[in-house]
């Protein structure tokens, strides 16, 4: 594995963490529509910890790095966000353990690990109006682009566009999981806060890509 691999992963995590901290209020407002309004607070506290501990994480390889991120996030975020985001990083780490190099296919495999982990931990699936409704189709799209021989730039752009499209489309869904589910049909008409947050995070990551 090259040091470039780790540098790219570090960029992704750092960008995600910075957006979560910067957008605390915006994410909270998204969640307040039908959830309990704590998404922004939860993510910001968890990723604040990631940024604060940034230099102390072990960087033996991508898997080790991601496992440390998982623990940092989950130890700080309460409620259900911590375990869900922590599991995503934990499973991405497990996927990375089996990979020699972090290429496009590896990214797909890590994203699959992350979304499968969220599914299992949250007992949720596509259509339940969660962040999975943005992340899974976007991963499918990334896989299609790679198979079609798209460049890294094209892949990233397509991933971001699909994430946004699918996050917006969650407005039509009724929430089946999480606090928003207690609102039942009242959750229709506004996008899922988690999916919308993921879209904002991915858009900024792609725009800032070095």
């Amino acid at each position, binding site marked *: 594995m090259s040091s470039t691999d780790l540098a790219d992963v570090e960029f992704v995590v750092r960008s995600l963490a910075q957006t979560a901290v910067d957008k605390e209020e915006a994410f909270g407002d998204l969640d307040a529509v039908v959830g309990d309004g704590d998404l922004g607070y939860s993510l910001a506290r968890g990723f604040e910890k990631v940024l604060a501990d940034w230099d102390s994480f072990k960087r033996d390889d991508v898997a080790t790095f991601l*496992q440390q991120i*998982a*623990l940092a996030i*989950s*130890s*700080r975020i*309460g*409620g*259900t966000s*911590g*375990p*869900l985001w*922590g*599991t995503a990083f*934990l499973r991405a780490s*497990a996927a990375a353990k089996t990979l020699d190099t972090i290429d496009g296919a590896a990214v797909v495999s890590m994203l699959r690990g992350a979304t499968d982990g969220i599914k299992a*931990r*949250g*007992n949720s699936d596509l259509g339940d109006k969660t962040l999975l409704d943005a992340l899974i189709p976007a991963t499918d799209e990334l896989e299609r682009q790679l198979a079609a021989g798209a460049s890294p730039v094209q892949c990233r752009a397509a991933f971001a566009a699909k994430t946004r499209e699918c996050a917006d489309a969650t407005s039509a869904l009724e929430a089946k999981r999480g606090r928003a589910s*207690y609102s039942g049909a009242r959750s229709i008409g506004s996008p899922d806060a988690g999916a919308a947050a993921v879209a904002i995070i991915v858009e900024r990551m792609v725009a800032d890509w070095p």
Partner: protein
Amino acid sequence: MKKFVNDPQQFVPDMLEGLALANPDTLKYVPEYNLIMRADGPDQEKVSIVQGSGSGHEPAHVMIVGRGMLDAACPGDVFAAPPLDYVYETTKLMASPKGVLLLVNNYTGDKMVFDMAQEMSSAEGIEVKTLFINDDVSVEDSTYTIGRRGVAGNFFVIKAVAAAAERGADLDEVIRIGEKVNSVTRTMGVALTACTPPAKGSPLFELGEDEIEMGVGIHGEPGRRRAKMMSANEIVEELLGPVVRDLPFREGDRVALMVNGLGGTPISELYLLYGQAHKRLAEQGISVGRSYVGEYCTSLDMAGASITLVKLDDEIESLLMDPAEIPIRVF
């Protein structure tokens, strides 16, 4: 609301420090992870039995650490699941060649945290399993749960698995016993008043002067219905009926009967409830083999009680009778 509190954020650590100072020979306190463990633990010859959950349910779980009961307990803040790193580090500290069993009441946050801690500890080569307890018959799902909640019946699961572990059972056998006891244990509770978490400083929910919450959860979650205050015997009828019908318990069954106080009810009232429950069971041909009256799993200062029945057989009864030594004592 008046409470013995310094800094609400320090409520749990201050309580744990007091607990450790009062029991220096038997307990060890690891403040970094809110961990209370047996001073002589972990015993490498037995399965380690660990319970984690929010605080506020004392004596469960930090005050039932000791020989024959829990090897360790790692509480979160009041009514909040412990953070992942507490559970993860606790599991590593309690690792034994015979394995670790994590016992958890079935609430969404706890379930996720303990599942993750198990996954992370397993990846490090620790043999660890998780058992979820779900004895509450009041509601299938609530704000805090996936499926049925775990409440006071967790005492019987802990007692039985801990006794089995002391006898030398391996991890699979300990889990078999835990699942068996959980499958024959049923509970329902009632609140006469709400409770007041130290950090909140005001009652957690609204209950009118003449109102009670039938089927309340141990964090004050709503139950089956809000009712007008009624006589003690009528309350026993409303609690015992659903519990008996749920398993169901039948004529000829022999049971353990527990009347558990939720923190703010005098023991005199608990015995009054016990008497009526015992008689009502006898009328249905159900005999009480073992009796438990007192506070086992509370909700801070909530006035209220829960009734638990466990269907006994020779194996369960024998495990419940094994000796145990915990900080709660009268001599």
